[in-house]
C-alpha cells in the first residue's frame, strides 16, 4: 500500500470518527429521553441517504478526466481542510472553547425533554427528525471527504472502508459506554484531519492545475510537514499573544 493510500485510509477513518462522535451525542441525547425506536429509525434513514449519495456520486466521478477531478477535489479538500485546521488552531491556542461532548449531551437531553410530543407515521416526529438531521448533516461532510479522497486517488473502496470502520468503532464505543464519548480527543483529531485534508488539497489541486511535483508523492509528506510545522508555530504564537493580553494577576 502506498503512502498516499495509507493517508487516505487514515484521513477517512479520522474524519468519520470525529463527525460520528458528534452525531452519537445527538442521537443519545434524544434516545435516552424519548425512547430508542424513532431516533434509530431516523439514524437508519439518514444512513441510507448517505450511502445512496456515495453509491451515486462515486461511480459518476469516474467518468470525469483525472486532471479536472483532482483540480476540483483539491479545491474542495482545501476548503474543508482549512476550516478544520483553522478551528483546531483557534481551539488549541485557547481563542475558542473546546467542544464538550458531555455539555452537548446535556443540552440535547434538555431540549428533547421540553419538546412537544407529535406523532407522524407512527413515529415520535421530534426524535426521528433530530436523529435524522444530526446524522445526515454530520455525515454529509464525511461523504464529501470519502468521495473526494477515494475518487482522486482511485481508491473509493478504501476510503469508504476507512469511514465505515470508524462508524462501527464509534457505535460500538457508544453502546459500551452508554453515554457521550467525551474522552475522545476531538481537537487533536480535527487537527490531524485538517492537516491531511489541506495537504491532499494542495497536492491534488496543484497537480490538477498542471503542476509536476518534485519527488512525486514524496512532496505530499513535505507539504504535510510544512503545514504541520506552520500550525504548531501559529498555536504557540497565538497562545503567547493571549497570555500577554490577559490582565496581570489573572490565573491560567
Amino acid at each position, binding site marked *: 500500500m502506498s503512502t498516499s493510500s495509507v493517508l487516505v485510509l487514515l484521513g477517512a477513518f479520522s474524519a468519520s470518527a470525529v463527525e460520528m462522535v458528534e452525531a452519537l451525542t445527538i442521537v443519545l441525547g434524544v434516545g435516552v429521553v424519548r425512547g430508542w425506536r424513532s431516533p434509530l429509525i431516523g439514524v437508519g434513514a439518514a444512513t441510507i441517504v448517505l450511502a445512496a449519495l456515495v453509491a451515486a456520486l462515486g461511480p459518476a466521478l469516474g467518468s470525469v478526466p483525472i486532471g479536472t477531478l483532482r483540480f476540483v477535489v483539491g479545491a474542495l479538500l482545501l476548503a474543508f481542510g482549512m476550516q478544520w485546521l*483553522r478551528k483546531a*488552531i483557534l481551539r488549541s491556542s485557547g481563542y475558542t472553547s473546546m467542544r464538550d461532548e458531555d455539555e452537548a449531551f446535556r443540552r440535547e437531553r434538555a431540549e428533547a425533554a421540553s419538546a412537544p410530543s407529535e406523532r407522524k407515521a407512527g413515529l415520535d416526529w421530534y426524535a426521528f427528525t433530530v436523529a435524522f438531521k444530526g446524522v445526515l448533516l454530520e455525515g454529509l461532510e464525511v461523504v464529501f471527504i470519502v468521495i473526494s479522497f477515494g475518487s482522486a486517488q482511485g481508491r473509493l473502496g478504501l476510503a469508504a472502508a476507512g469511514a465505515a470502520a470508524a462508524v462501527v468503532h464509534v457505535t460500538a464505543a457508544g453502546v459500551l459506554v452508554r453515554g457521550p464519548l467525551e474522552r475522545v480527543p476531538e481537537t487533536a483529531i480535527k487537527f490531524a484531519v485538517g492537516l491531511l485534508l489541506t495537504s491532499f488539497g494542495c497536492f491534488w489541486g496543484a497537480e490538477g*492545475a498542471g503542476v*509536476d*511535483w518534485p519527488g512525486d508523492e514524496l512532496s505530499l509528506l513535505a507539504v504535510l510537514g510544512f503545514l504541520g510545522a506552520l500550525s504548531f508555530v501559529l498555536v504557540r504564537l497565538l497562545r503567547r499573544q493571549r497570555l500577554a493580553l490577559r490582565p496581570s494577576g489573572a490565573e491560567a
Partner: protein
Amino acid sequence: MRYLRAFALFWWDFIVGDDWRVAAGLALALGLTYLLTHNGVNAWWLLPLAVGTVLAGSVWRAAR
C-alpha cells in the same frame, strides 16, 4: 423562496465556512497556479505558500 435561501446558506456555510477570505484566497491561488503552469512555470511552491499565508492571516484576524 425561504427554502431556496436556506439551501444556499447551507452550502455557503458548508463550503466557505466562517471566513470568506480563506475561500477567496484559495481560489485566487489555484487560479494563479493554473495560469503559471500553463505558461511554462512549474509553480509547485505557490499553493503551499498561499495556504500558509491565508491560514496565518485568518487565525490572526480571528484572534484580534
